C-alpha cells in the first residue's frame, strides 16, 4: 500500500473524531511545548551567562589574587612584597605565554564631581592594557596611553553611563575635554567608553529603550521610585567604570595610604591574558614561576580563572537541561501511552473494517503500516500544535524574564522536540498496529 494513501486514511480517521483526536494529542502537545520551552529557557540562560563571561574578559583572562602562604612559610610571609608593579614588569619580560598584563589599583566610593553634581563610584588606576583585557571599546576620544602612565598625567576615561549621570540634562553629550574632580583633584576627560549590554538586552532595546536610558529619563522627570541598579551586574560595572593612569592613582591617592602611613605600592588587582588557550596550564605555571621570584619564594598568591566559572555555567545548564528533559520526557511518555490507549480502542472499533481490508487483499504489513502511520500523524499534528503552543508561551516568557536571560528558541531544539513528538507517535502505534495486523481475518469479519 502506498504511504500517501496510508497518510490520507490516517488524516481522515483523525478528522472523523476531531475532539477525541485533540484529546489524544494533548499529551504530545503539552510534552512538546514543555520540552521546547525548557530548551529555550536553558539556552537563554546559557547565552546570557556566556555573554556575561565574555563581556568580563572571557576564559582567556585570569587574575593573580592574594592567598595565605602555606604554613611552613607563614613566618617568612613579610619577606614578600605582595602584588606590585615589579610583578607586572617581570611578567611582561619573563612570561612569553602571557600576552597582556593589566595591573590595577582601585579606590571605592570616590566622590566624582562636576560643578555641583557629585556621584560616588569606584575609580580604577590602570594601564592601557585595561581596555583590551576587559573587552572595552572607546566610543569617543582615546584610552589612557603609556605616556600618560609614564608622565603621570591627570587624565580620565569614563564609562558611558558616567557621562549620563554627570550631565543628566543632556544624555547624549560627549564630555571630551571637560574637567571632573576626583576627590577634589581635577582630571581631564580624554575618552568615553562604549555602551556595553547583552545581546538580548540589545534586542529588547531595538523595540523600546534601554534600562539605563529609562532610568535617566525617569530621574529627569522627577520620579524617584525606581529599582536600584544592580552594582554586581557585569554590564552595570562596565558602563560605570572610571579609569585614570595607575601612576597618577599612586601619586594622588596612595602615597600615604599604607598601614603605617607610608606609601602603598600594592596592586588591588593583577589580571593577565593567556596568549594561547590550549596552553592555559602551562601559562599559569610560567606566571607562577615568575611570581615565585618576585615574591621571594613566598606562595602568597593564587590564580582566579574563569575556567571554573565557565565549567559551573556548563554544569548548571546541563543539570537544568537534564531535569527539564526528564519532566518533559515523562509528559511525552504519558502522551504516548494516551495514543496507544486510543489506538487500541480505535482498532477494536474497526475490527470489522480490518477484516474487510484483509479479505480484499490487504497484507498484514499493510494493516500494520496503516495503524502506525495513523498514530504517527497524531504525533506529527500534536508536535506542530506543541510548537505553536511553545511559541506562544515563549512570547510570554520573553516579557517576564530578565533581559540578559531571555529564552532563545534554537532550530535544533525545535527539530529535537518535533522529532520526539513524531517518534513517540510512531512508537506508541507499534503495539496496536501489531495487534491489528495479527487479527484473524475470519474472526474479524465475523466480529460485531
Amino acid at each position: 500500500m502506498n504511504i500517501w494513501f496510508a497518510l490520507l486514511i490516517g488524516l481522515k480517521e483523525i478528522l472523523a473524531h476531531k475532539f477525541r483526536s485533540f484529546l489524544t494529542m494533548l499529551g504530545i502537545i503539552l510534552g512538546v511545548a514543555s520540552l521546547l520551552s525548557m530548551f529555550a529557557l536553558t539556552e537563554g540562560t546559557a547565552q546570557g551567562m556566556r555573554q556575561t563571561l565574555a563581556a568580563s574578559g572571557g576564559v582567556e583572562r585570569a587574575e593573580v589574587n592574594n592567598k595565605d602562604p602555606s604554613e611552613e612559610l607563614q613566618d617568612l610571609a613579610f619577606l614578600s612584597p605582595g602584588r606590585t608593579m615589579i610583578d607586572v614588569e617581570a611578567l611582561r619580560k619573563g612570561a612569553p605565554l602571557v600576552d597582556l598584563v593589566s595591573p590595577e589599583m582601585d579606590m571605592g566610593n570616590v566622590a566624582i564631581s562636576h560643578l555641583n553634581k557629585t556621584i560616588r563610584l569606584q575609580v580604577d588606576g590602570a594601564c592601557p592594557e585595561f581596555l583590551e583585557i576587559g573587552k572595552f571599546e572607546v566610543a569617543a576620544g582615546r584610552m589612557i596611553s603609556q605616556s600618560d602612565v609614564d608622565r603621570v598625567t591627570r587624565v580620565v576615561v569614563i564609562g558611558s553611563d558616567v557621562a549620563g549621570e554627570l550631565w543628566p540634562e543632556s544624555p547624549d553629550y560627549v564630555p571630551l575635554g571637560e574637567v571632573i574632580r576626583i576627590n577634589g583633584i581635577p582630571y581631564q576627560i580624554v575618552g568615553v567608553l562604549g555602551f556595553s549590554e547583552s545581546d538580548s538586552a540589545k534586542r529588547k532595546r531595538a523595540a523600546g529603550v534601554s534600562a539605563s536610558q529609562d532610568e535617566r529619563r525617569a530621574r529627569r522627570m522627577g520620579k524617584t521610585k525606581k529599582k536600584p541598579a544592580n552594582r554586581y551586574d557585569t554590564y552595570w560595572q562596565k558602563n560605570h567604570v572610571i579609569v585614570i593612569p595607575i601612576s597618577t592613582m599612586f601619586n594622588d591617592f596612595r602615597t600615604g595610604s599604607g598601614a603605617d602611613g607610608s606609601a602603598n605600592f600594592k596592586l588591588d588587582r593583577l589580571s593577565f591574558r593567556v596568549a594561547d588557550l590550549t596552553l592555559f596550564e602551562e601559562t599559569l605555571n610560567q606566571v607562577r614561576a615568575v611570581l615565585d621570584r618576585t615574591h621571594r619564594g613566598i606562595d602568597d598568591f593564587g590564580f582566579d580563572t574563569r575556567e571554573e566559572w565557565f565549567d559551573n555555567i556548563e554544569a548548571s545548564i546541563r543539570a537544568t537541561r537534564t531535569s527539564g528533559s526528564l519532566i518533559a520526557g515523562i509528559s511525552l511518555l504519558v502522551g504516548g501511552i494516551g495514543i496507544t490507549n486510543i489506538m487500541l480502542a480505535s482498532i477494536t472499533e474497526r475490527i470489522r473494517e480490518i477484516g474487510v481490508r484483509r479479505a480484499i487483499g490487504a497484507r498484514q504489513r499493510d494493516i500494520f503500516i496503516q495503524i502506525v502511520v495513523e498514530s504517527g500523524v497524531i504525533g506529527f499534528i500534536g508536535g506542530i500544535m506543541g510548537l505553536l503552543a511553545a511559541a506562544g508561551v515563549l512570547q510570554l516568557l520573553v516579557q517576564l524574564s530578565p533581559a540578559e536571560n531571555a529564552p532563545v528558541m534554537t532550530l535544533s531544539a525545535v527539530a529535537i522536540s518535533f522529532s520526539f513528538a513524531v517518534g513517540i507517535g510512531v512508537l506508541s502505534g507499534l503495539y496496536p498496529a501489531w495487534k491489528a495486523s495479527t487479527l484473524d481475518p475470519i474472526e474479524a469479519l465475523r466480529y460485531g
Partner: protein
Amino acid sequence: MALVELHDIRKTYRVGDQEIAALDGITLSIEAGEFLAIIGPSGSGKSTLMHLLGCLDTPTSGSLVIDGVDVSRASNNELAAMRNSKIGFVFQSFNLLPKFDVLRNVELPMVYAGVPGKVRRERAMAAIERVDLMHRIHNTPLQLSGGQCQRVAIARAIVNNPKIVFADEPTGNLDSHTGEAILALFRELAASGRTVVIVTHDNNIAARLPRRIEMRDGRIRVGVEAAVSDTTPLLPIMPPREGAGA
C-alpha cells in the same frame, strides 16, 4: 485442469481437548465459468469451505489448488495476494467502509494491488457502471439502500478482475425483490464467464443455480450434487416467493 481443485480437504478446530472436524474429507472441482451454490444448514461446514476456497484460511490437511496455485500451504502474504488478484468477496452485511464514498470503496482492492491512481479511478468507474450506480458515485454507504450497498460490494468484488467471486448469503439482508435483482446481477457475471460461488442456506436460491453442492456435517452429501440440467432457465427472474430470504 479445473479452476479449483480440492482433494481430501480436512479442517479441524481444537476446542479445549476436543478436536472438531469442520471439514471431513472434501474432494471437489470447480470449472472456470461455473455458477454454483453451496448449501447446507448452519454448522454443516459451508462457511469453513468458503473460507478455504476464498483463501482466508488454510486446510489442516489435503490439497487445494486454485488457478494452478497450491494454496493449502501458502503463507499469509501469498494468501493475501491470492485474495487480492484472483478472488472477490460479497458479504451478507455488505462490509463497505462507511467513511469512504462509493468510488473509494470500489478503488480499495486496487490500492492494495498497487494500481496507480489514474488507472484505479478508471477501472473503478467501469465497475460501478457495470452495477449501474454511476449516479451515486460520491455517496457514502450510509446514504445508500441495502440493494445499492450490495451492488457497490459486487463492483468492489469484480474490480480487480478476479477468477472467482464468492458471495456469502448475498441476499440475506435484502428484501426478496431486491434480492432477486442482486441474483440477476450474479447471473450476468456468470454469463460473462466469471466463476460465481454463492453460499446460502436458502434452497429457493440454490434451486435455480446450474450446480448445487450440499454440505452436511463437514461432508458433501452424496447423490445430491447432481447438476441441475443446463436447460434450466436462468432468466427471466422468478417472482418472489414466500419465505425467500428468511
